[in-house]
């Protein structure tokens, strides 16, 4: 039935065209430009693998070197706009339309190009949302992916940084799309099969590893005492009373401080085994002391972290590892785990407004979302109970029938009232709104919506938004922890004191915390070297983080 096999036929043509530049499945590097030209068609939907960590960098620069007179109008559907070449593809007119999730280091340039009309934006997604669309209406025609090694049959070993690869390959290959992988080397036998060879059409031997950004390494030396105070408040005021065992941490310094306080402050509070036992989390170096002290039972990871490979391999009781011994990460599964199987998300943000919407957007930058809005949202499809989930649900609707009451995921925003360069954390109006109107976006890029956030933690205290009964209380609860920002100074002191009496706002002294105890000596590690030592030398930090 040729009418029903048009996609298969088109794939056959691409395979035949590509075959002319390959030996079997292997494309030699010098043939890569001619090969790419022969298998990509103008107007194709292309997934160029890359997220906030790993990058198919060789394939990205080859794609950017195509001639726009021959190939144009590509629709890029990819997790990350991270490398300069990702935007060169648009600058040169090879691609036109973009659906993506994260743009960290390119956030300023992507905004300029959107203003300049060089990019036609579909939408900014969360990771899981973009993955979902790969299977519905954004299925790639071509996927350009990255792995560590391949055999001649195309079986791929992705190593600790598997990340998005299985998802991208699943969506592309099973829907008649073409899959091309860059690998460091071709081997006789791969250490483990992460992607079966019959889903992979061609492999390119790059001769060097794909690029990985050490995004989740936070140097303990840079943690401030204010951040330590916020971490103490979170541990004693949220982790302990709710008994949060299953959770995800953001990448900021506040949560790094929490990780480093578990074996010291957390131990003193007797919380070991009662909180932080199961994580959806990358292998954060700052979690090493807690793992070594026996706090953590299990961690599933989105990706790996540069330098943590040997440590992870030596702790298979905690991490997911393959028969070869190395970490197996999977972004789609871990995002799902963070959404449905965790009781708390806690992370830093740049701006919070009076309703509690928060955003990491500033007017000149579009950093995208990555996974935070997914982690930082209450999953309406959740049905299994747990202590923190039920307790949060009860606080939100104390009068309702317990058996019919939804629980609530704890979504905690943590930060100092004044952030980097003394920018206030609390604002009347999010910069995201200016950006949305300047770019004529239907939606302002909001990281965590106000109806999802349950707690805000600053050095001034904790605001429990679950216990606010109306808009006014909510606003005063937020103002009540906003310190000396304009928002904080415009509080209604009487109402704030009332909220405090009800336990909606809790100050350090209400929790028995002396701010003077927030000392760097409380950190289980105060430098990258301490982390290396705590790992027994297994953690090998990248050169840029080593101060020895």
């Amino acid at each position, binding site marked *: 039935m040729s009418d029903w096999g048009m996609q298969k036929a088109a794939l056959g043509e691409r395979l035949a065209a590509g075959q002319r530049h390959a030996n079997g499945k292997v494309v030699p590097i010098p043939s890569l430009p001619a090969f790419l030209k022969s298998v990509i068609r103008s107007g194709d939907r292309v997934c160029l693998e890359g997220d906030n960590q790993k990058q198919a960098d060789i394939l990205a620069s080859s794609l950017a070197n195509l001639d726009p007179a021959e190939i144009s109008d590509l629709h890029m559907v990819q997790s990350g706009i991270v490398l300069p070449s990702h935007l060169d593809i648009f600058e040169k007119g090879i691609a036109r339309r973009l659906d993506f999730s994260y743009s960290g280091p390119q956030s300023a340039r992507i905004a300029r190009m959107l203003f300049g009309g060089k990019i036609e934006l579909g939408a900014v997604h969360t990771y899981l949302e973009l993955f979902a669309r790969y299977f519905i209406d954004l299925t790639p025609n071509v996927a350009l992916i990255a792995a560590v090694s391949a055999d001649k049959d195309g079986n791929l070993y992705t190593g600790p940084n598997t990340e998005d690869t299985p998802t991208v390959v699943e969506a592309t290959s099973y829907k008649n799309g073409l899959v091309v992988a860059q690998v460091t080397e071709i081997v006789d036998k791969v250490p483990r099969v992460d992607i079966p060879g019959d889903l992979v059409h061609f492999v390119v031997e790059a001769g060097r590893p794909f690029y990985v950004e050490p995004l989740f390494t936070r140097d303990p030396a840079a943690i401030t005492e204010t951040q330590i105070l916020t971490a103490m408040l979170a541990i004693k005021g949220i982790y302990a009373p709710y008994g949060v065992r299953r959770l995800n941490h953001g990448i900021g310094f506040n949560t790094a401080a929490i990780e480093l306080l578990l*074996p010291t402050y957390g131990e003193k509070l007797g919380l070991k085994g009662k909180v932080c036992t199961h994580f959806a989390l990358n292998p954060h170096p700052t979690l090493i*002391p807690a793992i070594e*002290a026996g706090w953590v039972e299990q961690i599933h990871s989105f990706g790996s972290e540069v330098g943590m490979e040997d440590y992870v391999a030596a702790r298979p009781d905690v991490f997911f590892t393959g028969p070869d011994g190395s970490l197996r990460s999977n972004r789609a599964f871990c995002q799902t785990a963070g959404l449905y199987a965790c009781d708390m998300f806690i992370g830093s943000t740049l701006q919070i407004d009076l309703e509690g919407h928060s955003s990491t957007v500033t007017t000149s930058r579009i950093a995208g979302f990555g996974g935070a809005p997914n982690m930082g949202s209450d999953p309406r499809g959740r049905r299994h109970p747990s202590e923190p989930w039920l307790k949060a649900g009860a606080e939100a609707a104390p009068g309702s029938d317990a058996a019919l009451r939804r629980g609530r995921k704890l979504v905690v925003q943590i930060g100092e009232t004044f952030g980097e360069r003394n920018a206030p954390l609390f604002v009347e109006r999010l910069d995201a709104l200016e950006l949305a109107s300047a770019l004529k976006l239907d939606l302002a890029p909001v990281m965590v919506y106000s109806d999802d956030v349950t707690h805000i933690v600053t050095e001034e205290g904790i605001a429990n938004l679950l216990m606010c009964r109306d808009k006014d209380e909510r606003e005063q609860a937020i103002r009540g922890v906003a310190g000396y920002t304009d928002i904080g100074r415009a509080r209604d002191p009487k109402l704030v004191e009332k909220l405090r009496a009800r336990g909606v706002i809790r100050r350090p002294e209400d929790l028995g915390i002396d701010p003077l105890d927030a000392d760097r000596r409380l950190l289980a*590690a105060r430098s990258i070297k301490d982390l290396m*030592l705590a790992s027994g*030398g297994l953690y090998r930090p990248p*050169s840029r983080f*080593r101060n020895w």
Partner: protein
Amino acid sequence: MTAATANTDSLSWYEASARQRIDALVDPGSFVEFIGPEQREMSPHLAIFDLPEQFDDGIVIGRGRLDSSPVFVAAQEGRFMGGAFGEVHGAKLTGLLRAARTLRQDVLILFDTGGVRLQEANAGELAIAEIMRAIVEARRAGVNVIGVIGGRAGCYGGGSLIAGTCSRLIVSEQGRISVSGPEVIETNKGIEEFDSRDRALVWRTMGGKHRYLIGGADAFVDDEAQAVRQAAIDALEVTRGYGVANLEAEQSRLERRLQRFGAARDAVDVWQALGIDKPTDIPALPTDAFLAAANNRENADDAR
């Protein structure tokens, strides 16, 4: 693991503030501050730039006792403007050194500085010159001036020149000594010459271990206040005096050093030339093992 508890037993020199360092260094309760913060002797320049001031202008000076011997102490606060020298900051140290010469009392300078404060550059540069002269004059009068380097800001720019005039330098692994900082070198010579973001490169080029190995410092200690205190007590026992003979010895030592290592492209090449067994292991060695490996280091003299 002991990492969780180790921190509470000792004071990291690198982490500590200027005042915490003094408290941990001198005999308990013996410190008396001169021109303390209550006198609000602040920079006359910073307000012009709308920059915050500090009541002690980022340096604490005074007298105390070290193992019962009277000493003068100066400690820079690296967390205030990178410990940089301004007019008042410099004048406090100059005054302390002149008093040391008159009263024949040894001095400890706890460096933590990026160099001269750009907002008051002329006054700062003059202060550097005055301080170096005051140190030389004090040493000529038989006073020992000991420098300690192990703070967050390191010891850069004019601070490193001052350090070069001290009788003895005590350094920790975290300490860095260099005239030009990493960013300055990269800006002027390009990232191929020096990648300032490569922290391992920064430390093996300017860090305490390398400086100790090539004779840029006299004592190498753990990043711990009691270790610094003991090294300071030891340092005060060395021979006093300063003259042409010291300078000539130092000149020939530097010529020899240039001959031996002038062609080296990286600190590891220098360590290899020193005959160190596994030079690439040096950065990771704990203090005891490092000191054993450093047996063949270049000598440090009483001038640098």
